[in-house]
């Protein structure tokens, strides 16, 4: 097995509040291999974005990494000073967010933004950087890139802007791409184009991708492995086929069967009653226990860690050996 490109070990993200400390990401561990796409799924509030932000070093205070480690190519990056982290971001880690406008400055042309980023990370003169920027725009599928490079972000449609953001994230050939809901704001037809593009660039650059989304269809088409988060914790992780077709954790099973599918006639959808607990009210034991059809005594008191379950790992006492 190749050494992992990214390792997250026992990550814990906390928010101190007046009424006590909220634990938004709790004892989360996973790895991503070079060239691999790890999908991260879970309902809103599960802690997906905070995990991504912790990795790229952009957690907003008072949120903080309370314990655990994050390693990029074997080297710890969770305790670096802000300057060192800023150099890693852009050069070795590229970030793509849901709203392309958060990554683009409305006051500068996309050419100016691409050229600046290229020059910060690579030793290129202005002319070289400009022709590299045009190449990048062509690679992400912007028509007539030599003409569009001098346009401002607002001249582009949502889908085209997301392509520009991907070009920006790829400038310096990062080893890791963290993409947080990159297609959520886009229509299905555009979404499919962006997914294909992400897959292509990951393959061609040998980059690892952490793809955060709540859309299982996107995961099925893109990811090699999937991590399912629930209430800040890892519920299940495994190869994409196994998580989707043979989920082991009762939450993942419930989630999968609640998704309506084309070509399937069902009178009603399977539903998980209730809702994910708020961070202030996570129950003891397994966080899923109040909604779990299979819970038993142990689930109510003792917290399960991920353990082998079929081809996956599931944090569920049903699989205790």
């Amino acid at each position: 097995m190749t050494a992992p490109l990214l390792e997250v070990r026992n990550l814990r993200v906390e928010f101190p509040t007046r009424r006590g400390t909220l634990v938004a990401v709790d004892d989360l561990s996973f790895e991503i291999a070079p060239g691999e796409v790890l999908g991260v799924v879970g309902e809103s509030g599960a802690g997906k974005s905070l995990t991504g932000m912790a990795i790229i070093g952009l957690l907003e205070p008072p949120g903080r990494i309370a314990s655990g480690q994050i390693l990029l190519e074997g080297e710890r990056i969770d305790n670096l000073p802000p300057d060192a982290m800023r150099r890693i971001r852009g050069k070795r880690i590229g970030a793509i967010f849901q709203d392309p406008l958060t990554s683009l400055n409305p006051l500068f042309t996309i050419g100016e933004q691409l050229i600046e980023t290229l020059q910060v990370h690579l030793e290129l003169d202005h002319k070289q950087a400009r022709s590299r920027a045009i190449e990048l725009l062509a690679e992400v599928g912007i028509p007539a890139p030599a003409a569009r490079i001098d346009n401002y972000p607002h001249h582009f449609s949502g889908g085209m802007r997301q392509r520009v953001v991907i070009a920006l994230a790829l400038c310096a050939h990062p080893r890791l791409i963290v993409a947080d809901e990159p297609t959520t704001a886009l229509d299905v037809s555009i979404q499919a184009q962006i997914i294909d593009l992400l897959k292509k660039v990951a393959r061609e650059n040998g980059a690892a991708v952490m793809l955060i989304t709540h859309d299982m269809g996107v995961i099925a088409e893109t990811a090699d492995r999937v991590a399912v988060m629930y209430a800040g914790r890892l519920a299940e992780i495994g190869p994409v086929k196994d998580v989707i077709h043979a989920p082991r954790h009762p939450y993942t099973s419930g989630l999968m069967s609640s998704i309506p599918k084309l070509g399937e006639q069902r009178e009603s959808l399977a539903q998980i009653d209730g809702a994910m607990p708020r961070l202030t009210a996570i129950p003891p034991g397994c966080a899923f226990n109040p909604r779990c059809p299979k819970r038993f005594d142990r689930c109510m008191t003792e917290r399960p860690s991920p353990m082998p379950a079929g081809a996956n790992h599931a944090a569920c006492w049903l699989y205790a050996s």
Partner: protein
Amino acid sequence: MPPDTLLELKDVGRTFDVSRPWLDRVLEGEGRRSLRAVDGVSFTIKRGETLALVGESGCGKSTVARLIVGLYPPSEGKIEFEGADLSDPASSPMRRRMQMIFQDPYASLNPRWRVRDIVAEPIVAHGLAPDRATLEARVGELLSQVGLAPQDGEKYPHEFSGGQRQRISIARALSSNPEFLVCDEPTSALDVSVQAQILNLMKDLQQRLGLTYLFISHNLAVVAHIATRVGVMYLGRLVEIADARDLFTQPRHPYTRMLIDAIPDLEMSGKARTPVAGEVPNPISPPPGCTFNPRCPHANERCRSERPMRIDLPGSRSAACHAVEEGRLSASGG
């Protein structure tokens, strides 16, 4: 009109003025600009069925919904409810019989009101409860009907999760005993597990109360689950309409085929997807002829100049496409 038709749109259009402010126009010598958000849309909804409207954002789905519930008047055409023209003031009592549910259940609930007052308001407004006790009983019944507890009426909207807030808006919509609900992306802001709860609730209510739905969504799998009929919109026009099963198994219009093809494949069957080309053009200056022609793999000269009319096809369906009309497309597959 067949007796089981509840609602009918006849050649409905809606144009918006999207000109820049007067002074800017004068300074830059620019004329007025208008946008045809809905263009020549006709369909009927039968009592008890669910007609879904699908299409990419900006294709005019929400505008159709707002025209139907009377949030704006149509620029052309007629909307009839049980045969009565809704633009006729005499038809205004009909309005109580239709209600609307929106995507964002928070924005549509007054945050300063208790849930019981939110749900009671339409009952009071329409004078449907003779006294306080009847009103309270009715509100309690509505809350139970949508899976909340009658005691939840004491709380405020912010005390509820997104899914529960959508239940509150459904209870409110049901409070005036409507027969017809216009639902604009009612589950699009919800997580899938919560979406399943709301879709199940909506189906259940439809059966118990005999409701008719217009259900708007951009999620085709959701539509396949809930709809009996499906209309596909593109740039303000209805390009295809068919029974749900037929539409998903044998899409006829190239745009419908493209939409179905673009859905990520959860079964991971490894089917090769036809790459989707291009994006929706600017609605202010739509292409001539068939507005889908720049993205259509089957476009020819006629498609670039002549607007296709919707033609009836076997099996109570219709599509607006020259290639379909000319038999250039096989009935199923690409």
